[in-house]
């Protein structure tokens, strides 16, 4: 029982840690009037993870505005170094509250709780994870990724990246 409880806590903590989508993203219905680029997680072939606002994408590199020790910094990633990309274009919906609520409902179901507790946990955890990741894409092509940058047209000519905030 203790082990199960620990597993459950680990799962819930894991879910909470998934919810690192930044606040600057719009809610889903405002995606058409949001001026910034989407939030992007890029994993490189050397297994480094770079996260931040997608600034632009061109034939050779992806430019990300990321935070390093609380300082904004522009990072260029060579396209050949990219292992995979995950992009969030809107804030997810937090369904985390359903996990304790439905678990409590199970507790009051006597014999049935032995079935409903795991069922409720699996369902609510799945929905919470899905809600967090709902407005995201994975395994996009460069063409698709470019459309979600702050500058989908590419960087303006002679643009000084150090001015980006």
């Amino acid at each position, binding site marked *: 029982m203790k082990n199960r409880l620990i597993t459950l806590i680990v799962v819930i903590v894991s879910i909470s840690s998934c919810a690192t989508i930044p606040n600057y993203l719009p809610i889903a219905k405002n995606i058409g009037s949001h001026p910034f680029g989407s939030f992007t997680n890029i994993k490189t072939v050397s297994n480094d993870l770079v996260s931040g606002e997608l600034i632009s994408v061109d034939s050779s590199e992806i430019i990300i505005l990321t935070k390093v020790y609380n300082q904004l910094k522009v990072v260029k990633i060579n396209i050949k170094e990219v292992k995979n990309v995950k992009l969030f274009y809107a804030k997810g919906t937090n369904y985390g509250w359903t996990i304790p609520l439905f678990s409590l409902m199970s507790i009051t179901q*006597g014999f049935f709780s032995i079935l409903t507790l795991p069922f409720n946990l699996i369902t609510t955890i799945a929905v919470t994870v899905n809600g967090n990741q709902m407005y995201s894409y994975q395994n996009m092509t460069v063409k698709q990724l470019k459309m979600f940058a702050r500058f*989908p047209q590419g960087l303006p000519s002679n643009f000084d990246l150090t001015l980006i905030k």
Partner: protein
Amino acid sequence: MKSNLFILALGILFFQSCSSFYFRANYKQANDLIYSTSRLQTKPFLKAHMQNGDVFILNKNWNIDSTQTFISGYGTQYDFNRKKIEEGSFYIIISNVALFETNNELINPEALNVGILSTVAVINVAINLFCIAQPKACYGSCPTFYLNENDNFHYADAEGFSNAIVPSMEYSDIDALKIVKPIGNEFNITMKNEALETHYVNDVKLYAFPVNENEFVFHTPENKFYLCQNIYNLTKAIGSEGDITALLTNPDINERFSLSDNKNLNSKEELFFNFNNVSDINNLGFILNFRQTLMTTYLFYNSMGYMGNEFGDLFLKLEKDSTLKKKFDATTQLLGGIDLYTFNEKTKNWDLENTYNETGPIAINKQLIALKQKNYTSTVKIKLVLNKGFWRIDFAGLTNIDKEVSPTILGPTSLLKNGKPNVETFTTINNDNKYIISKPGNEFKFGFKLPSVDTKYALFLYSKGYYMEWMRKDWLKDKNLPKLRQMVYKPNRFLKREAKNYKKYESQMESIFWNSKIDTKSFSLYEK
């Protein structure tokens, strides 16, 4: 490889003037934009990404002039850092625009999640309402025993004194455990109280029988123990639904059961078993792994509900009045046990051998009946007569009885209460006049020392005591003394009239509770 695909996709990008991905579309030419948005009743917001990095976000009333020179509309201009520059009406020269972007509105993006949660909520609310309306269906058991303390009651190894609902009905119960070869000579078993009951446990002992390879010990309904050899599996088993051989060939908790009769709970059914090619037809014993359905729980809790606020007085009467005590479970007496018949090849009749009867829906009983009849060919034909919807059968087999044996009886050598040593409880369990009192949520781990190391033992659990069911507030409203009298004095009539109510309960409880697969856990007669 992924990088190459990435570069290839990048190449394709530069040969296309417009592109779209799900809700988002980009246009390099105003003409493409006009074409793709002209048929829309409501235009989407338009983003005009400028060559200098600024962006204009225009509301849904934007327009392109007929000469395609400029775009007009109300909106907001942002600089390259997306700092708001101005809000108002704009005329944007198209030649300064690097790219147009439109986004379709997402329609019901949360529909799937909301749908799933709504469905789950409806199921949960239905079960909660059912438990409020029928609390008796959702709670209750008697002391449950586990070899693995982390198991839940689906895998209870034994269930103690289920019939002892008042002190004077105290009795001892023996349940078969497994054949084990423990590491060292330590053996532990955990007793749990998983219901709203108080358990009064007078004694817990272990009956141990050393066995060799291919030897088994089974106990009979009369608590005799037999050393046996050979297990003959079923050749054919037929029930009212057809062939049930596959369900009864292995002790795998994949059980055969039927539903109750909708007109009369007291309705019998027959199961027919054939064992072909029994190599030794001498001293045969029939092994049956079985337990009750939840019909017993239903009847018992109903009787408590009918007592209402007179529950205490009536239980006191039950305790003192031996005639009433005999009649109290008249309904379950009428439903009966599992009658075992063998086919007599000489007389061509079915001979009644004996009856299996053990109360409790949780732990599976494994019992043997020594067959008296000797007139078999190499095919042994067996018939079971049992009440519909009252029994669940997991395994049926034949064995050869070698001899009657007596156990080595072991008392506990250690005892943990809720994970901690408890001297007082340990002293109590070893005193015949004292009782361990176990309340809901309590766990007692009994430790035993087997006589020798490196020996296989067939083990049986002996438990003695009684339990007091807790009256629930919700049950008080069910008070119905005439119905209680009918239950006790006219059980036949009661079982007929209650059939419909039970069907409602059975269809929900039996199908959801027992048929649901959790993680299937199979076990064998031997556990090393």
